């Protein structure tokens, strides 16, 4: 798939923002968030900024954004519609929750829980947009939604601890913050082991030609003689993205370094808040790279009709 930068940024940024929001809400529910301090407002503001910027970026992907408001119409069947509804519902509920928290209302605990669940649902439905597609076997696995949640909590948690290191927030336990980071890396490795290889579908399945049949019938490996067009088409442009193998290897190593060892190393080697911000930044860059590769390496089955032997 073509790695559209708007979508790469949208999923990474809104994931981080929602992750930060989820951690702040967890801290509030656990009674570890002193909401009278301005640092909490800064943290909530950063979360809102990331989610908002992500959502705005996602509309850049639309060829006809004039009709974007119609995206709420098919919640019953479409994950994209569900994501749109939940992401938009996040804002009034968040405003209500901030208001209730500032008033010190007892019901703020209930609104915190509701907002926490909503943020979680947004991340899951964003992931399900991709995971539900039968046409992209590399996405259609549990790794996609679980990975999106882990990346969201990982990047949000690192932002949380960076904000806490800058003062004004209770410093979260390192184990709590690092758990989703480790989970994200583990899920990514598990996906590499099981799903990165081709072999989910073949050109013969696509064209209903059996590999072997009684003599005389069409059979055996199919190959493309001619795609029927002299230049690129919408299909080759959208689904024909090819990532050079060498480049893929380099980027993959960079991704795992940024997501894995870079985080604790930077936090440990650079003292104070700077180290925490660097660790969060490294992981954020890793998530952006991961999301870019998520698209660049996803192979749509329509490639089979364009001559690729297997996806």
């Amino acid at each position: 798939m073509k790695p559209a930068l708007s979508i790469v940024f949208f999923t990474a940024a809104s994931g981080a923002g929602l992750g930060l929001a989820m951690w702040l809400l967890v801290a509030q529910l656990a009674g570890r968030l002193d909401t009278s301090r301005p640092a909490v407002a800064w943290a909530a503001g950063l979360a809102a900024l990331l989610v908002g910027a992500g959502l705005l970026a996602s509309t850049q992907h639309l060829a006809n954004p004039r009709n974007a408001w119609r995206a709420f119409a098919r919640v019953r069947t479409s994950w994209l519609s569900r994501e749109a509804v939940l992401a938009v519902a996040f804002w009034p509920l968040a405003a209500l929750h901030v208001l209730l928290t500032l008033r010190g209302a007892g019901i703020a605990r209930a609104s915190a829980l509701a907002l926490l669940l909503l943020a979680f649902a947004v991340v899951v439905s964003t992931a399900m947009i991709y995971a539900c597609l039968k046409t992209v076997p590399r996405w259609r696995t549990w790794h996609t939604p679980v990975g999106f949640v882990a990346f969201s909590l990982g990047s949000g948690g690192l932002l949380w601890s960076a904000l806490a290191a800058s003062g004004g927030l209770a410093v979260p336990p390192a184990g709590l913050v690092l758990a989703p980071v480790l989970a994200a890396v583990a899920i990514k490795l598990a996906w590499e082991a099981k799903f990165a290889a081709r072999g989910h579908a073949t050109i013969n399945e696509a064209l209903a030609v059996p590999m072997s049949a009684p003599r005389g019938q069409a059979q055996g490996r199919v190959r493309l003689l001619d795609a029927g067009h002299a230049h690129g088409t919408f299909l080759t442009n959208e689904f024909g993205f090819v990532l050079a193998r060498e480049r893929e290897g380099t980027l993959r190593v960079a991704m795992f370094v940024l997501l894995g060892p870079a985080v604790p190393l930077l936090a440990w080697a650079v003292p104070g808040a700077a180290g925490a911000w660097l660790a969060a930044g490294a992981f954020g860059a890793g998530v952006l790279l991961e999301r870019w590769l998520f698209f660049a390496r996803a192979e749509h089955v329509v490639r089979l009709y364009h001559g690729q032997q297997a996806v």
Partner: protein
Amino acid sequence: MSRLGLVIDIDACVGCQACATACKEWNGSSLMAGGAPDYDPHGDAPSGVWFNRVRHYEAGHYPLSKTMNVPMSCMHCEDADCVTVCPTGASYKRAEDGIVLVDPEKCMGCNYCAWACPYGARELDEDKGVMRKCTLCVDRIYDTALPEAERQPACVLACPTHARHFGDFDDPTSKVSTMSAERDGRPLFEKLGYKPVNRYLPPRATPDVPPPAALAPRGTLQSRLAAMVNRLVRL
């Protein structure tokens, strides 16, 4: 209730692109399909929206290989994921005849339906920012102003080798149903479970021809000598 679709005879198709160009000609200015634009048609990088594309393949190895020209347009799937994933409701499947259509007034051009389609049947109109696809010439097949024989998709009418047939698969006596039953009509990419309606008739089996002499095992010295003498005698 009907289930309209196409039968495409791979044995008859010569890959001439007549169906694809007839489709462009009819739908390029059709109100129902909304147009199929060309980009840079006479330039260095000609491209554009096609509802029907013909690709050319070879199955197996010479001398037992088959050349297959495979025209592909919307399969009007019974389980059309392009419709279920559409967030705006612009994509819909008609209950009365199963035709899958896009309402350009509602489409926001998110490409998600094209992602959900394994057949590459949907292409974005970059001029208008909305998705385009085969309508099965819904603006021809019900048009009573046309002579009855012409109430068929443009691609079917244009096909010079009669490789394309249009009809109702819900009617077991229809031409498409009987052809498909007789000739082992196959859906493409059945594994994905979209239940495509269109059927492809595989190339007919070639009669079992003995391999050419060059490939036959060399006989004994005696038989080769006899063959040589026979050839000389025939001179």
